[in-house]
């Protein structure tokens, strides 16, 4: 099977879905002949032309708003937000228009809004965000974030075929750093299903995106000390796979929530609430969060390193947790 990068996997999903379904088209800034800021859409314009690769003005609300309209007409738009940080500029359109449409009038909005998220590359406060928590209180939206190239392809295909609006966060740190064997053709990872990436008995690290790899490294280090960490990759952030979360915590009795966004008000809160409400019986220790510091994402490498969760931070927290 071909070994492809996370980025190539995204491109492949777009390419295949556009080939298979003429209703699918992409829109966004610089995604045409240029191929996008990260070259995710490279080659699409050549193959599908202006009609299905719509290079837009710098207007995130118009991108998402017109995608909503086009989806009403039966199209399946995939919008690229050049850096996912700029999703703040269409927050209203997403949370108020797209998310409520089906509930209000039965008018589904099958759009995908995708873009590069995450830090670790010196992007500074406005090119490094992990915005999932902004949208977690908005029913009607789905959110996914792959950690592997395989999932990158499979989740994007699932998102495009989904009949509801899906925010697809792709972690820019993983774009060219992660490679997987990914089959050509249909690879669909169902939305709403988490995956146990590593079995363990002593604690569960619940995470997603780039932090899955941090969790792996931490788990490896912990294994050296005789601690067996289970790594649960959420993959879908809304709606959360409660069953998988609860099953793993029921097994390990300890939960470490690892996410790259700022700690306060992050998705770890929702996870903690689910566990503390529904798996309380199983808990042998506090629920621990390892996340970024509660500050804007700083730019200088030493600051960003201090800001982000790290293998060491995870190992430390995990050790305390198992010793509790």
């Amino acid at each position: 099977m071909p070994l492809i990068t996370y980025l190539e996997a995204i491109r492949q999903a777009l390419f295949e879905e556009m080939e298979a379904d003429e209703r699918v088209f992409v829109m966004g800034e610089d995604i045409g002949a240029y191929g996008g800021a990260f070259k995710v859409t490279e080659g699409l314009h050549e193959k599908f032309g202006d009609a299905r690769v719509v290079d837009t003005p710098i207007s995130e609300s118009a991108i998402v708003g017109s995608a909503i309209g086009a989806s009403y007409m039966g199209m399946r738009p995939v919008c690229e937000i050049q850096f996912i940080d700029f999703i703040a500029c269409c927050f209203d359109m997403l949370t108020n228009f797209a998310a409520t449409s089906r509930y209000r009038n039965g008018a589904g909005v099958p759009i995908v809004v995708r873009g590069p998220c995450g830090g670790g590359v010196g992007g500074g406060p406005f090119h490094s965000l992990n915005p999932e928590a902004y949208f977690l209180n908005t029913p009607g939206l789905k959110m996914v974030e792959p950690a592997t190239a395989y999932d990158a392809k499979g989740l994007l295909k699932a998102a495009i075929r989904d009949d509801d609006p899906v925010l697809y966060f792709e972690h820019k740190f993983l774009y060219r750093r992660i490679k997987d064997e990914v089959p050509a053709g249909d690879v669909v990872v169902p939305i709403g299903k988490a995956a146990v990436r590593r079995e363990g008995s002593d604690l569960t690290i619940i995470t997603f995106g780039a932090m899955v790899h941090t969790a792996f490294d931490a788990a490896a280090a912990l294994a050296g000390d005789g601690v067996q960490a289970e790594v649960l990759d959420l993959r879908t952030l809304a709606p959360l796979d409660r069953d998988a979360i609860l099953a793993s915590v029921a097994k390990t009795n300890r939960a470490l929530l690892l996410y790259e966004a700022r700690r306060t008000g992050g998705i770890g809160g929702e996870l903690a609430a689910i566990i503390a409400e529904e798996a309380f019986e199983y808990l042998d220790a506090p629920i621990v969060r390892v996340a970024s510091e509660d500050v804007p994402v700083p730019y200088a490498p030493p600051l960003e390193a201090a800001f982000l969760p790290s293998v060491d931070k995870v190992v430390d927290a995990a050790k305390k947790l198992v010793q509790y």
Partner: protein
Amino acid sequence: MPDKPILNADEWRIADPDRPSEQLSREQLLEMYYFARLAREVEERLVVLFRQSKVIGGLYRSLGQEGESVATAYALERRDAVLPLIRNMGALMTMGVRPIEIFRQYMARGTSNSRGRDLNIHIVHLPDADADEPVIVGPISMLGDSIPVAAGIAMGARMRGRPRVAMAWIGDGATSTGAFHEGMNFAAVQKIPLVVVAEDNKYAYSKPIARQMAIRRIDERAASYGIAHELVDGNDMLAVYDAARVMVERARAGEGAQLLGVDTMRMQGHAQHDDARYVPKALLDAWTAKDPLRQFRGVLNDRGAAHDRELDDIDKMAKDYAAREAEAAASEPLPDPASVVRGVYADDPYTVPKLEFVRSPFAGSPGLKTRPTPEAVAGDDT
């Protein structure tokens, strides 16, 4: 605000026999009158329901604006797309939405298009591709958001190979939003068949238009985009129809987005709770004299299209129809509380009542294919 509403003098003038409105049959003229009157009567009935506390939340009138609302929508084909705002009752009537749908919405009935989940004219109709019906996408409350969505509807329809012109209405105040700007610019660059009707009704809630924009003519809101724009006397229904029809045809012909400014007046407060004491009485009086329905009666008389007696009959028909529809809606149930969690995502198939459409009693005329074909007079539909 403008010195004098203008029409695009290059292409036609009011007196020009090539005016699109010259092509309208007597039945069509009467139909336009009927729709405008029906819009007013539906709202009058809503006022009654409001006083009876049967309307949930606010009630927003389009008194004085029914003419422009009808005449712009009348310029469309039946399969085009409309994105009305709260004051476009006339457009909804013109597109054939059965009045009961409006009453259901305002009274939050479980039978309504939104099943009591959303307000007033927040209705959506996405017909099957082959159905001879309009696309209707009501607004969300966030002003301006309809414009990018309208652009997307017209773009998407074109992509699907079933082009439709999209018409979206926007208030003077709402043109100040970022969403308006982004949608207009997007439509211009993509040459989208979008016709935006910008309603200068002198106020945005309590604010006179001069506090909203430093331009003197609302249609200049299109100037930054390279979008063709004109301003028309919004209370002269035929002038509005003429201007709108030309724009709709241009849009359909691939000439890209168009903006029609209409010079009109909101004759009541922002909503029923607002006594609008901030509106100078002289201004109101001046516009009272220009009531679009009264003016249009004059036109119909002058053209020999209808006597006052005939028009009075239409008035009565509209009024009775509105009353019957209101009554019917009022007897329908509120939604079942247990349904509150249903239908958030597609995997929970929760059925939505499709909007009902009706044909006007005047729908039998040949000519423009803009209206629903004849079938029944309104009375039969209740």
